[in-house]
């Protein structure tokens, strides 16, 4: 190295001293802030991104004792799961509250990441919530998350299309009827069939609608019985095969998600679509003609005469076991999941309340027709949550590996997927 030029060296030393001084100054202010700020506790709530509903209720539920601060998780539900699980596995004390998606609620509860909900609060939540919402938030006989909002799917149709072909939508319809009606009259049936959780949601709803189940004895963990290879599984495969092979399939079927399904439905070929509740206001500004043309009915039946089991989605609130303020966090949960909070959230985001009482919030009644709200509640109440098991993410990925792409689904798919999922759970196959 060249000998240090004295001037340059001096300048460098000066800079170093300045930097050290600055860091020291910053640290001392930080310490003062920590030590002196005894006004109120800050509860950190990790939320999934939304249109401001959770921020609004966080502000509403902040008290003199504690302030609820929100931190936004990634958009993608599986990325939310990864971030939360990795933080919790490391015992991160920076999380007090979190918004949990149903598919990984059981996984977190089973891993011991969630503080147990006090009995009186649990009873209150169970009484106020829809059965489907409680079922999705229950693991091992205990309520582990507080149902906050509940989403479900209904069958959306274009009134003009249905009128044109003279289909009676006041009676329950089957998938078979919907697909045939669309195919024979140049319409499409928009679904979610990309290789992602939304496709598992559809498959689960189809199987449940035929009276089946993907997993039996979920509490046995890896030894749970995979029952996808059943008459119900075959019925489900048959519906997918029928749609994929018909003219009613949108051209982007294999990469379709909620958003693309909405686009297909809004196009000239749009006829039918299964999608979540928030899609109702999707066209208000962009395509007012379509908005006026939307009709709705209960989710189609897999088997004629057997009641359909619409998909269940939503968010439950969990309290981290590693939080330093579990008691205050539980208090906050009680306020955040009150019917009024659920109503405020629904008004801002279109994510419907998890309780019948939440639907009484006045603003919701103004934004949605009464019969649609009734349909939502009826659907949530009879919804089929995805199997509550700590291994849902493995099972779901296993389903996607074998059932995607929809054009490849056949009568042998349920059997293949059952074998594959079984060996994945036993650690005998790579996912």
């Amino acid at each position, binding site marked *: 190295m060249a000998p240090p030029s004295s001037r340059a060296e001096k300048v460098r030393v000066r800079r170093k001293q300045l930097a050290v001084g600055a860091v020291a100054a910053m640290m001392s202010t930080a310490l003062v802030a920590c030590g002196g700020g005894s006004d109120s506790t800050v509860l950190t709530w990790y939320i999934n991104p939304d249109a401001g509903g959770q921020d609004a209720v966080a502000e509403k539920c902040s008290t003199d004792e504690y302030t609820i601060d929100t931190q936004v998780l990634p958009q993608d539900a*599986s990325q939310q799961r*990864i971030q939360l*699980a*990795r933080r919790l*596995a490391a015992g991160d004390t920076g999380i007090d509250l979190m918004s949990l998606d149903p598919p990984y609620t059981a*996984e*977190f509860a*089973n*891993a011991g*990441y969630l503080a147990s909900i006090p009995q009186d609060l649990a009873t209150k939540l169970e009484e106020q919530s829809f059965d489907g919402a409680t079922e999705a938030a229950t693991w091992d006989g205990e309520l582990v998350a507080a149902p906050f909002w509940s989403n479900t799917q209904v069958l959306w149709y274009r009134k003009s299309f249905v009128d044109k072909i003279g289909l009676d939508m006041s009676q329950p319809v089957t998938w078979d009827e919907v697909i045939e009606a669309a195919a024979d009259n140049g319409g499409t049936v928009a679904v979610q069939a990309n*290789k992602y959780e939304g496709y598992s949601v559809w498959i689960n709803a189809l199987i449940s609608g035929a009276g089946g189940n993907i997993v039996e004895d979920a509490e046995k*963990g*890896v030894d749970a019985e995979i029952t996808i290879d059943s008459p119900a599984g075959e019925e489900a495969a048959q519906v997918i095969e029928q749609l994929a092979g018909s003219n009613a399939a949108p051209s982007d079927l*294999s*990469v379709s998600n909620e958003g693309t399904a909405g686009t297909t439905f809004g196009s000239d070929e749009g006829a039918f679509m299964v999608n979540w509740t928030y899609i109702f206001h999707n066209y208000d500004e962009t395509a007012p003609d379509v908005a006026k043309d939307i009709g709705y009915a209960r989710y189609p039946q897999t088997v004629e005469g057997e009641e359909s089991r619409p998909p269940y989605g939503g968010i439950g609130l969990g309290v981290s076991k590693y939080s330093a303020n579990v008691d205050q966090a539980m208090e906050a949960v009680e306020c955040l999941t009150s019917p009024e909070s659920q109503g405020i959230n629904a008004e801002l985001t279109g994510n419907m309340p998890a309780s019948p009482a939440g639907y009484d919030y006045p603003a919701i009644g103004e934004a949605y027709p009464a019969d649609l709200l009734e349909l939502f509640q009826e659907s949530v109440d009879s919804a089929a949550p995805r199997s509550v098991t*700590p291994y849902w*993410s*493995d099972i779901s*990925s296993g389903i996607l590996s074998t059932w995607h792409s929809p054009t490849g689904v056949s009568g042998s798919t349920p059997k293949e997927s059952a074998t594959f999922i079984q060996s994945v759970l036993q*650690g*005998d*196959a*790579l*996912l």
Partner: protein
Amino acid sequence: MTTTVTAKPGAKSAEPARSSDRSVAENRLGLKLVAPAVILMLIVTAWPMLQALYLSLFRYRLTTPDERDFVGLGNYVTALSDSLFWQDLWNTVVIMVVSVAVELVIGFAFAMVMHRIIFARGVIRTSILIPYGIITVVSAFAWQFAFSLNNGFVNSWFSWLPGISEDLNWFGAHWPAMFAIIVSEIWKTTPFMALLLLAGLSQVSEDMLEAAKVDGATWWQRLWKVILPNMRAAIMVAVLFRALDAFRIFDNIYVMTKGAEGTESSSFLTYRQVIEQFQLGMGSALSVLLFLSVLVLAFGIVKLFKVDLAQARGEG
């Protein structure tokens, strides 16, 4: 690199006692001086590697820590007997071989340009190196947009080519998606190859080239008989570095396809097991296998080029 100081062998044998005394003391001081660095390296590299080796013997999932089972080499057996592992390894090898081969040719051309250019040398050298300065994720997004069905330019510019049409979904099938990934990889790292080859090119003596010219060798003969043999060590280093780099490909796949359409690489598979599925045991086993593959690859390339590494470093 060119200023390596080596003691003359003759001096050593003339005064063995004095130099050995001194060298022992120097060695001791040297050991003391490097000790902190070595200890730090052990903590940050050796320990995680040993930890991975240990974890790979367990069936261990982050979210079910109580069900941790010792399975011995079970994870390795599962991985090696699974078709997904071999499919992903094959993808990785395809990406590595194609991209390194193409990069070697283009990179050599660029190196020649950078070496021989007379005017605007700085500007041309810099502009050739720009892609290498771009973050891989950014370049992957740029190429994803370029190949995109909705807003890309590739389809409309190249629709005159057979097999490419306005509505070709590049990411909807295996080979087109692999093509897009490889193009992005080549665009991004060719400058690196060119830079390493330029270093080799500048080591080829002008005297030798002139002598060959005087002897009547054509341009082609000079390239094959003088330039390339004399920069064999540099070529090996370039191929070795790039091959190992390409074998660990992750970013492009993550951004462009997320592994869909069977475009997953070995490191992407490892990522999914560890990060997405929390399978610490299986993921560790896969990373050990990845590490072993890289070792074998490095060994193979060194053997293939028959270069003495010490000589390549100029220590010979």
